[in-house]
């Protein structure tokens, strides 16, 4: 009893509800890029590089491995959902100020994983930072500046919360 053809996917992307027609075997990364969220980079397509990382209900997932059909009802955050040049997110500012960006291909994934990590714990140990970022490869500036950017992001977010500004949006509790 095979029907074939596209299927319906209801998902929130960066806070906006979408009702999409997708191919049943499509991966989330391709669906996002076709919608114009090209900050999600498709590198290896095998789970090795992390450039395709997005947040699903606040947690990092490799969007090249994740069947789009699996995010029905979920909240997906891409790099476009964090901030832009005029209004960057503190984690984005930290990456620029620490010089952790060269070609920028890995940066969306790195920034999103850092955001998720600093929402999980506001003062992660170095071991925890390494574990959380171990699925994200960078071929340009090396990892020292990236780890410095995570530290700087931690300070920026701490300052922001003591200044009474709102914390970046918490992921919804809804499970995938």
């Amino acid at each position: 009893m095979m029907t074939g053809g596209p299927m319906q996917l209801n998902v929130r992307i960066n806070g906006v509800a979408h009702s999409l027609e997708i191919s049943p075997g499509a991966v989330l990364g391709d669906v996002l890029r076709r919608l114009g969220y090209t900050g999600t980079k498709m590198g290896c397509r095998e789970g090795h590089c992390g450039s395709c990382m997005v947040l699903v209900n606040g947690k990092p997932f490799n969007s090249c491995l994740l069947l789009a059909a699996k995010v029905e009802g979920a909240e997906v955050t891409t790099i476009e959902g964090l901030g832009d040049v005029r209004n960057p997110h503190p984690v984005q500012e930290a990456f620029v100020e620490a010089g952790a960006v060269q070609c920028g291909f890995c940066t969306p994934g790195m920034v999103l994983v850092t955001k998720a990590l600093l929402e999980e714990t506001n003062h992660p140990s170095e071991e925890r930072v390494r574990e959380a970022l171990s699925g994200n490869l960078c071929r340009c500036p090396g990892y020292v500046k990236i780890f410095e950017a995570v530290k700087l992001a931690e300070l920026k977010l701490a300052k922001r919360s003591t200044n009474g500004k709102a914390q970046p949006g918490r992921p919804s509790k809804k499970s995938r």
Partner: protein
Amino acid sequence: MPVTVTDYLRPSSLKEALALLAEDPAKTIAVGGGISVVLSGAPRRVRAVDLQHTGINEIKKTKDELCLGAMASLDDLVKSPLCGKFAGGVLCEGLRTAATEPIRRLITVGGNIVQCYYWATLPPLLIALDGRVHLRSVEHRRTVKASEFFARPPMRQLDRGELITEVSFPLLPKRVAAFEKLAKTSNDYALIHVVVSYVPKRGKVSDARVVVAACTNLPVRCAEVESYLEGQTINFAVAKEAGQLATHHVKLRGDFRASSEYRRRVLPVLVQRALLKAAKKQDDFITNR
């Protein structure tokens, strides 16, 4: 993409999932994390049945077993306090070395053991800790010992329309266990896995399990090493001899990641390390009592 998914079905109960699989078992596949569906090289047209909402993701402890639902992810296990306390934490210690954290969020217990790539992390742990695999189809339920389940490729163990619903481990408070992985980076595919476990009896080894994987096509128990260890007190010389014995009795694979010669040189060291680590845990256990 080589696998063409024609329909994507999301049953809301196990019963519904089993019925969907039974309708057309040859053309229907179960989806756990779905990684192999995405990466598979096999050109097929399939109907996908996602098990995400079938309620088989629970991690629970009964009077005498630790039970892991087939849809629990490896990340769920690594972060589970119940798994953390089981067998001195060896399950979490081992699974933490599998892939990266975001990928562990996708890999499911069922998918990991059915696919059973030679580098898979859960299968050798299941064998070394006397695990059992629980299967179900529309018509029947059955339970298979892990050592039997992995004796041939698990995909061939499943009857048509059959699903894994759970794996379980007996609670053996006295068993000590240790895990070793050799890989080029901490989260790369394993070149060798070694898991050892035994019950210490007056300082001596009893009921040993020595499981070797990733350097073999399927995880294997080394019967010769296990009988050599029976009644021994683990020290450097015994652990070294056990390592040497393992290389003589296991057929090692060679592939583009590592040659069989390389694996032959390294395997004894890993067996030795795992045994000494387990013996250290045994000492800590005695001192802390």
